[in-house]
Structures are given as structure tokens and as C-alpha cells.
């Protein structure tokens, strides 16, 4: 029978051949495709092929009520859904001219940081698996599951929490939740040594990751790279500190940076960020009980809720980078336009194509995972 999934390309006088990575390929993150032209082992050019996860979110949102949209926004980035709801809620609040009560803001911050912890744990395993080491994936995903348990505890949803609404959060924290959170953080910190020994200081892994997909700061800025990928190039830029939202200006945290800009620097930045998130969460555990008050600013009946005319651009630092929602209202009960600026739309298309050029076939998957690209953010 024919080799079906392969179409030979006739290229005349050339050594080049084409190879598909994805959409069905273990070296691709999610449902995404990357077409490579190879000369031997060296990538001559790569072309991203997106759209496998396209659902037309922006169109869907124009056809639904403001409150209904909360159910679909988290689906835009599956591994890290919390920043999506928060960003959408913040944008709507800005148009409405209301502000979430201070306690709700603290709870939101906690949710964002927990989500970041979960997303980073997920990334370590994925990145390690592209180099052939599967144990960190098993460990990371199992530890992430414990975070998901907490999500389930306080929001009711394991992955998609749909916990935020414009004006606050849906419900109060369950009793003794902070104690559980504190226990989890203790556990995660106790695992630090294991992860360091297994992954971050593993000599073979370091050899593989160092120098792979290196990006200089100028290139990163030119390609609009944000988030941990930018910080790995030596620029300490974080939306949480530079365009503060929620209560981040009251919290103490460092912005970890690395200067090499390669895959190893990126995963180290994520590792450090994970522990910074734990530090933030510890502060929240300390401060939250003393912050009393409502968790919701009342909004009109959501089924006949007309948001006044206006527009807002809300930016949040997700685990992947700068996430932004541009929401336009024409005064109706539905958004007139919602534009999602997913950080991965910059990383997974132009940056990946740029970095893949000249890389080795062995490194392509690693470059993609080290950029922590999330394909649904590209496709929407």
C-alpha cells in the first residue's frame, strides 16, 4: 500500500526535503502543525500552519450575552485558563466603570498565581519530554493535579473554573482553604530538590538545552516576545509590575531573569517563577484573612445587562506572556467586538519560524516547547 501520510515534493536540483511535524505528532504542543524544509539534519525553513483549533471565538462572543461569554473565555488557553477570565472581567469592569471589591481582587490574584504554578509544572514535563526524558512529565502532571484539586475546592471546576464575573468573584473561599493551600505549597517546595536533581541540573539535559533556540534581546523585542521568554533574554519586564493590576503592587516578588536567551534559560526562568509564585501565594495566605468585605460589586440582572458604550484594553501576565483583551461595547447586551491577544500568537508563529531556521531537526520540538506556545491562543 502507499505511504499515505507523505507527499513527496519534487524540488528539482536540490537536496531539500519536506517533513511535517504535526498536527498528529508527539513533538508538537497541542493541535498545531509545523512544516519543515530540511537539508540533511538542518532546517532550511519552517512554516507554521495554524487553524486546527479555530472555533471562531471572537465571532461566538459577539453572539452571546456578556455573562455567557465568561463560560467560553477560559477555553482559549487550556493549560492556563484563569488569566483569560480575569482579563475579560477586568476589561468589562473598566468599560462599566466599576471596580471589584478589594477582597475579590486578592482572591483573583491567588487564582492567577495558582494557575501559573499549574501551568509551569505542566511545561517542565513537556519540555523534558521533547528531549527524551519522560519522568519529569509524570511527576509534573501529578503535582499539577494537586493544584487542580484546590481549584476544584474553591471554584468548583477542575480545569475551567469560570470563577470570575465582572464585578468580583462568584463565591467565598471554603473554610480551611488557606490551610490546604499552605500545605500544598509546603509539598511543592519539598519537591524542589527532586526536580533540580532530575531535570534542571541534569548534565545531559543541560547539554541539550543550552544554546538551543537562542534569542538575543533585540531580536526578542523586535518579535514582540513577552513573558518568561523575554525575561530569559535579560529584560526584566513583567506586566504584573510594570502595568500593575489587581493587588500586585502590594505584593513583594522578584522578577527572575536569565541572559542567555536559550531553551535552558527559558526553563530556568520558569522554574524561578514557580517559586516566586509560591512566595506570592504565601503572602496572600498571610494577608487574606485580615481583608474582610464583599466579594462582588452588584451588577444588574445579567440576562438583560447592557454594558455602556466604550472600549477597554486589559492586560494580564499569563504564564505564557502578555495576554490582552480588547473589548468594545456599543451599549448592547452583547459585546460588539472582543479581540484576544494571546501571547503565543507571537511565539508560535513568527518567533518559532525565526528560531527554527538553521536549527537541527532534533531541536525543533524543544524550541517549540521551550517557548511554551499554546496553539489555541493562535487559532482562537
Amino acid at each position: 500500500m502507499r505511504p499515505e501520510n507523505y507527499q513527496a515534493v519534487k524540488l528539482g536540483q536540490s537536496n531539500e526535503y519536506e517533513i511535517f511535524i504535526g498536527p498528529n505528532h508527539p513533538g508538537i504542543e497541542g493541535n498545531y502543525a509545523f512544516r519543515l524544509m530540511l537539508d540533511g539534519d538542518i532546517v532550511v525553513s519552517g512554516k507554521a500552519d495554524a487553524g486546527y483549533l479555530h472555533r471562531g471565538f471572537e465571532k461566538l462572543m459577539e453572539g452571546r450575552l456578556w455573562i455567557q461569554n465568561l463560560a467560553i473565555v477560559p477555553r482559549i488557553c487550556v493549560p492556563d485558563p484563569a488569566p483569560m477570565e480575569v482579563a475579560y472581567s477586568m476589561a468589562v469592569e473598566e468599560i462599566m466603570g466599576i471596580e471589584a471589591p478589594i477582597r475579590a481582587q486578592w482572591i483573583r490574584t491567588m487564582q492567577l498565581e495558582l494557575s501559573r504554578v499549574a501551568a509551569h509544572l505542566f511545561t517542565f514535563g513537556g519540555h523534558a519530554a521533547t528531549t527524551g526524558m519522560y519522568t519529569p512529565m509524570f511527576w509534573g502532571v501529578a503535582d499539577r493535579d494537586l493544584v487542580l484539586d484546590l481549584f476544584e475546592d474553591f471554584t468548583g471546576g477542575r480545569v475551567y473554573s469560570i470563577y470570575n464575573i465582572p464585578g468580583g468573584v462568584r463565591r467565598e473561599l471554603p473554610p480551611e482553604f488557606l490551610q490546604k493551600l499552605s500545605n500544598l505549597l509546603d509539598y511543592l517546595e519539598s519537591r524542589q530538590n527532586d526536580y533540580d536533581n532530575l531535570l534542571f541540573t541534569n548534565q545531559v539535559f543541560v547539554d541539550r538545552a543550552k544554546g538551543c533556540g537562542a534569542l538575543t534581546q533585540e531580536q526578542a523585542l523586535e518579535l514582540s516576545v513577552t513573558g518568561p521568554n523575554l525575561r530569559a533574554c535579560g529584560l526584566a519586564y513583567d506586566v504584573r509590575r510594570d502595568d500593575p493590576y489587581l493587588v500586585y503592587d502590594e505584593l513583594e516578588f522578584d522578577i527572575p531573569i536569565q541572559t542567555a536567551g536559550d531553551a535552558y534559560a527559558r526553563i530556568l526562568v520558569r522554574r524561578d517563577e514557580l517559586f516566586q509564585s509560591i512566595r506570592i501565594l504565601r503572602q496572600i495566605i498571610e494577608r487574606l484573612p485580615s481583608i474582610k468585605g464583599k466579594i462582588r460589586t452588584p451588577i444588574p440582572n445579567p440576562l438583560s445587562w447592557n454594558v455602556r458604550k466604550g472600549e477597554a484594553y486589559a492586560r494580564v501576565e499569563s504564564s505564557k506572556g502578555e495576554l490582552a483583551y480588547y473589548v468594545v461595547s456599543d451599549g448592547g447586551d452583547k459585546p460588539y467586538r472582543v479581540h484576544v491577544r494571546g501571547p503565543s500568537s507571537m511565539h508560535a508563529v513568527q518567533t518559532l519560524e525565526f528560531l527554527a531556521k538553521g536549527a537541527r531537526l532534533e531541536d525543533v520540538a524543544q524550541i517549540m516547547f521551550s517557548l511554551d506556545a499554546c496553539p489555541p491562543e493562535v487559532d482562537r
Partner: protein
Amino acid sequence: MKKELKIIQKERTNPLAHVFDDFISFCQSKSLFMLHYCTGCGAIELPPAMTSRFDMERLGIQPMVTPRQADILLITGYVSIKTLKRVILTYEQMQSPKYVIGICSCTVNGGMYWQSYATAKKLNEYMPVDVYIAGCMPRPEAVMEGLQRLKDNIRNDKKEHKGSAWKDYFNRYDYYLGNQQALFGDDWQTPTDIIAEAKLYDLETEETYGKHTKLLEKHQTPLLPQEMRIK
């Protein structure tokens, strides 16, 4: 594979034949390789189900990377039209017996994306589905439960004919092809020759052919063996 080839089903005279058959179906139910293809957001619940916490391997299920080796195709969530084409291609490349599990409500009826112009709504219009696991998204426990159900179906296939949905694709190819053509256009064709395979493995029925397969024959460009040229 040449079209003249045909596997001749001999009369089974071996008195132990059904014992062997039972043993094979027992082993089939105990060892399932699933294809590592994340079609949608439900895929996020597969890593937990596969890894340390729920550990699918103790049920005999492990991920495989290419469709050739896989037994189960997990459709994890909505399938956009672009994905659906690839999913059908993947499904046709898999070797029978093969099973499809539709995870998430989106595969049943479009789910929360029912208004979306870009996603297909009913998965079982395009390929036979063995088990649906509803939920948005189903928890790992539900995924395991669904897989357990599939295993039971395979085990009881002889009695209840639940586990052989894959035969339906050959038996009623015209129906599935019709739905695919309605969505992808008349000139839709996959590189796999399902009709030839149905003939070869003695799975053809009257419903294998119809107006849609005629249309396919009209548009089908012959697929020649591929050449790889270097210089």
C-alpha cells in the same frame, strides 16, 4: 496491496477456533494503544489520566505516536473542519480493529460551540464512534470509566456486537463519505482506498457503494507510488 488479492475465508474446522478467537478478543480488550493526538481542549485531561495519579497503563492502555500502531483514536473535544479532515485521514490509516472515543460534549452535538462556523457538530456522521464520554470536560475518572466500557464492549463483542463499530465504516462507507463530501466539497478524497480494503477483507456490503462513491470515483486522481528524489 493489489486489488486482485483477496483473503479467502476458509470454513473454520478447527474445534478450538472459538477458543483462539476468545483469547484474541480478550487480549484486544486488555491491550489498547491509543493515538497521541490532541484534537481539542479535552486533551488536557489525558495527561493526568495517563500519568502518575490515575495511571492508565495499569489498565493496559498506553499512548502510541503513529496511527499505524494505534487501536483507539481519542477525539478530545470539538473538531474544527480543518482538524476533521486530518482526523478522518488518521482514522483511515489505523489498522482494524480500531475504536473511536468521542470525549467532551462537543463531539456529541457541537457542545458550547454549536453556533460556531468552524467546528463540526456530530462526530458519528463522519466516522463510527464506539463510546461517547460527555462532559465539559470529562474528568480523568470519567475518561477511565469510558475506556473501561470500551474494554467491556470489546470483550463481549461476539455476543452483543458492540465493539465492532469499525466494520460499519467499511459496510456503510457511502453514508460516511456522503457526509464528508457535504462538508468538504465534492472533490474530497483521502489517500486511502477504503473500497479496495473493504473488498480485500470481505467487508463490503450493498451500502458500501452508492452515489457518493460514484462521485468519488469521478473525482479521484489516481495515487501513484511516491517517488523520493534526491538530486
